């Protein structure tokens, strides 16, 4: 019992410390302006954690801080996806426009779908309210998972290269979104894991996500500026491949 309490405390404190360290590293490297949403997230999460500690004995404020904070955290996670897309695709304005449009449609459809389902079965009794909040959280996580899948596949298919910080941000958020959604499904829908184990696993998953961010933001890496560009045969390859495209594809 004491061991699990110790582990839970460690899993609670560790990400707070790491997030403060990440925020400071971002300020020192002038990255806060470059990734404002992610920076806000790393500042917001420790603040929420400390507020929850203060209100842990008072049920009502704790409830509002917990669920209000969770809603803000999810909105910031959603914002982080758009921020990552914007950063990674900044050299490809056309692609960025297409991806933003696609993502906006997915987000709008997801929000409308979740709200319609929620309104159709809205009840205000305490236990029902909690179930509805859990349902909203699961819907939001599912939306995040779908957006990350879409974006990762697009990046991989177009062979676009990830930069270090967007890769770290994306990996951390995507990992946490995937594990958290799976855990919520196993707990809420399938009742496959007990409550305390669920909380412990969820906390561990968040710690791993923060660990990923810490790895990418706290370990520095030197990139040497390029003084000239190499000669390439991209033009020749493009010419050869266009020949096959013309030969093999019938234009409509």
């Amino acid at each position, binding site marked *: 019992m004491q061991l699990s309490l110790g582990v839970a405390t460690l899993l609670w404190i560790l990400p707070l410390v790491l997030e403060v360290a990440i925020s400071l590293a971002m300020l020192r490297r002038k990255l806060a302006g470059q990734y404002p949403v992610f920076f806000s997230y790393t500042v917001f999460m420790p603040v929420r954690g400390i507020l929850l500690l203060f209100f842990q004995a008072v049920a009502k404020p704790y409830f509002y801080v917990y669920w209000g904070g969770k809603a803000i955290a999810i909105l910031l996670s959603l914002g982080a996806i758009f921020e990552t897309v914007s950063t990674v695709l900044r050299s490809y*304005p056309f692609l960025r426009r297409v991806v933003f449009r696609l993502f906006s449609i997915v987000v709008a459809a997801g929000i409308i779908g979740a709200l319609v389902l929620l309104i159709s079965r809205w009840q205000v009794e305490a236990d029902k309210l909690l179930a509805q909040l859990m349902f909203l959280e699961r819907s939001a996580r599912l939306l995040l998972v779908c957006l990350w*899948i879409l974006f990762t596949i697009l990046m991989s298919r177009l*062979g676009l290269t990830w*930069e270090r910080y967007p890769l770290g941000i994306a990996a951390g958020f995507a990992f946490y979104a995937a594990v958290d959604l*799976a855990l919520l499904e196993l707990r809420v*829908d399938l009742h496959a894991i007990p409550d305390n184990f669920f909380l412990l696993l969820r906390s561990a998953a968040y710690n791993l996500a923060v660990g990923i961010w810490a790895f990418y933001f706290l370990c520095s890496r030197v990139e040497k500026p390029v003084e000239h560009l190499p000669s390439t045969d991209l033009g020749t390859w*493009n010419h050869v491949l266009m020949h096959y495209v013309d030969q093999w*594809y019938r234009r*409509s």
Partner: protein
Amino acid sequence: MVSAIIILFLSGCLLLLVWNVVHTKAPEIRRLEDWEANRHDVDIASFRMLLDHGEEQLLKSALSVRRFRCFQRKRLRLAWRMLQLVERNTAMLMKVGQLARSSVDPVLVHQAEDLIAAALRLRVNLLLIQAYVCMKWLFPGWTAPIPVCETRYRQLLHSVVQVRQQTRGESLIVS
């Protein structure tokens, strides 16, 4: 139950994708020397030979159907491997272009933008060629063209060039 399975499947997919992105086998490009050390030399003439229609017809007439299919698949596998190497080269060149874009020299920045646009154009072409090679591997004797929405494809390529020129124009006005 069905929704739970779909959700768990999606979560698993995302975890695999994240693992794939983080543990990519592609070499890290931090300086120009990394490109020189990791680039793959792919012979265009050999690639053309592997996909040459005349060679394919010659093999078809000289070999039995079974032998032809086997031989043609070997040729397509080789072509596929070459396309993969070109794909890796393109990804590395995109990274070199990104590094060069942070330079203070405006000429180098423009050249880097040209390089990135050419690499992106090649990636789109590679996708189309890979899809066709895949179809040819499944049906080695197949010669019919695949219908494609040309207008969209041309629009994509055109917008890449247009955006590049636009960016160049804007930066010239600023300077």
